[in-house]
């Protein structure tokens, strides 16, 4: 892909995108994982990444808060990712500030083996916030934000690991909200949850959409259809199609997308 292709975006585009990806190439060692991705993600929308396993969608998501820095052999081969107009792979970027700005929820819910309260307060405590009243307020606010407050308000000091899987995942979302990010990345947040817990998380995503920009990776096409405003289909490290969710599921332009969505492969 030699030519600088124009970003695939949807048409009715008024406000500037919060995340801009231009000609992005990414590799693990010698094997290239992402090829020349161009994409604009808009503010306060839910963008879903779908595609078969190993197509690079999780890798791509982890580029947005530079979690791939943890992998030694991972490197950017070209292109850039701009968040709010700033290239996040610039040399003068403080990764810590970036990650405060871009929160993340992982595939496997990973609450710390501490109390529910301490889990939420963690993000603030590491920033040096010690005041009990501030922490109390934030914990309540975040738990309410994650629709968890009524379920756990009486056992804030119990271990987070005593919660159900769905509650743990919503706790992780609440924990991510505590540092007040603008963007929330979700890496298959429901893959380990039962349908009821999944429905709750999806409901939560709908709620969060009002205040946050959400990028969600999912294996579940129905989920993408349910929660997202736009959907991007990845295949073998390439962005095949990026459209309004309704369009991509109703009449996909690309035959590969159609094949995947109709379940013929992947």
């Amino acid at each position, binding site marked *: 892909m030699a030519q600088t292709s124009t970003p695939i975006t949807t048409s009715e585009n008024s406000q500037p995108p919060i995340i801009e990806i231009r000609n992005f190439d990414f590799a693990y060692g010698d094997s290239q994982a992402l090829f020349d991705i161009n994409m604009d993600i808009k503010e306060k929308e839910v963008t879903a990444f779908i595609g078969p396993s190993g197509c690079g969608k999780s890798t791509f998501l982890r580029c947005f808060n530079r979690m791939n820095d*943890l992998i030694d052999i991972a490197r950017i081969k070209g292109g850039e990712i701009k968040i709010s107009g700033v290239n996040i792979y610039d040399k003068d970027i403080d990764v810590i500030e970036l990650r405060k700005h871009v*929160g993340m929820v*992982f595939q496997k819910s*990973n609450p710390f083996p501490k109390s529910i309260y301490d889990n939420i307060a*963690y*993000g603030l405590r590491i920033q040096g916030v010690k005041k009990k009243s501030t922490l109390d307020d934030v914990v309540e606010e975040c738990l309410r934000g994650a629709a968890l407050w009524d379920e756990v308000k009486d056992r804030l000091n119990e271990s987070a690991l005593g919660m159900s899987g769905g509650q743990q995942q919503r706790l992780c979302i609440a*924990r991510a909200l*505590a540092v007040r990010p603008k963007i929330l990345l979700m890496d298959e947040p429901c893959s380990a949850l039962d349908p009821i817990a999944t429905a709750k998380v999806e409901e939560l995503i709908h709620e969060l959409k009002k205040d946050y920009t959400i990028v969600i990776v999912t294996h579940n096409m129905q989920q993408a259809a349910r929660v997202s405003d736009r959907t991007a289909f990845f295949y073998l490290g390439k962005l095949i199609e990026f459209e309004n969710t309704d369009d991509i599921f109703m009449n996909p332009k690309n035959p590969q997308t159609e094949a995947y969505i109709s379940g013929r492969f992947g």
Partner: protein
Amino acid sequence: MSAQKAPHPFSKRKSRQAAFESFTTLFFRLATYAVIIAAGYIFFNIAYNGSKAVFMTKAPFINIAFLTQKPQTLHVYEPKEIYDELASIKAEILSSKAKKAALGSGAKTEAAAYSSQIETLEERYETLDEERKEGRLMYSDSEYRALPEPPSEELYAYNNYAYSGGGIGPAIIGTCLLVAGSIAIALTLGVLCAVYLSEYSRPGRVLQLIRLSILNLSGVPSIVFGLFGFGMFVLFFGWGVSMIAGWFTLAIMALPVIITASEESMRAIPKGFREGSLALGASKWTTIRTNVLPYALPGILTSSIMGIARVAGETAPIMFTAAFALRDQLPWEGLTKPTDFFFQGVMALPYHIYVVSAKIPQNEYTRNMQYGAAFVFLFIVGFFALSSIILRVKIRKKYKW
């Protein structure tokens, strides 16, 4: 259960396989029992013999003098008559035995006569020996010096035995100080090193090599560490035979175990905790401090137990670097300036056991001291280990995932 009953498909059949199976099981079982019996015998033996020195039949039941006093020469006065008679009986027994041995195989009646003679003599010896134990006077060095005049030489036979009187107080204190100091140094260095190796270093051939050499270090004989410590700390750094030289020598000995075990326990922490923390905007060190080290603490404490077990029992490394066979003063006595505390030699239990076992003649008085010291020593090591096990269990309960 009639024999005529037709065998069903799942009936037990005799086969070589089954016989072999039961034989191997028996073999494993016997080996395990042998180990348990040997270990039990060792502990029982030390506890039984050692408790003679440590416990008393009268209140307060614990021989406080033994646990607190310094080792001293034991002065023993035994009633002269009994002493002399015992010596003559012993000579008679010996001569009878010699005569019996000299007899040919034909003279059976004579041999039997000698045997009964020896038996009566031995009985007599034992009763006299009891009397001797009742009648004897024993003084440790300090008591001996305090006597207005020693018991008369005409009534009593006098002997003295080095290290057999007094107690092992300074050795207990010295051992505790050596173990505490060296484990503190080893844990600090070891955990820092393990954090670097498991969290910061780049995996690759160099790291493999470093790991391998650390592992190999734990196989180095302790005497080599002793020589290293002697050359490095005692001579080159000029610290002399001192507690601080012993600390560092022992710490280096415990390091491999501590580094390996700590690193393993840190690498066993799920990646999710690190990622979760980093994704919330924690720096790498914050993540390690709040979300790796606390969870790895049980493993680190296990490593410290192994470290303590290795460090506390070693004689060779402290022989050249820290231990004195005998020191009159306790570590906090007679210091001209505070730093002197670190630069003084101390007594240590393993070395003390070595000295009383190998450097002085063996007799009933020294045996008491040896077993007593060994018993107390086992107890102290057990105490250190137990306290870190308790700590570990507590922390493990707190952070469970």
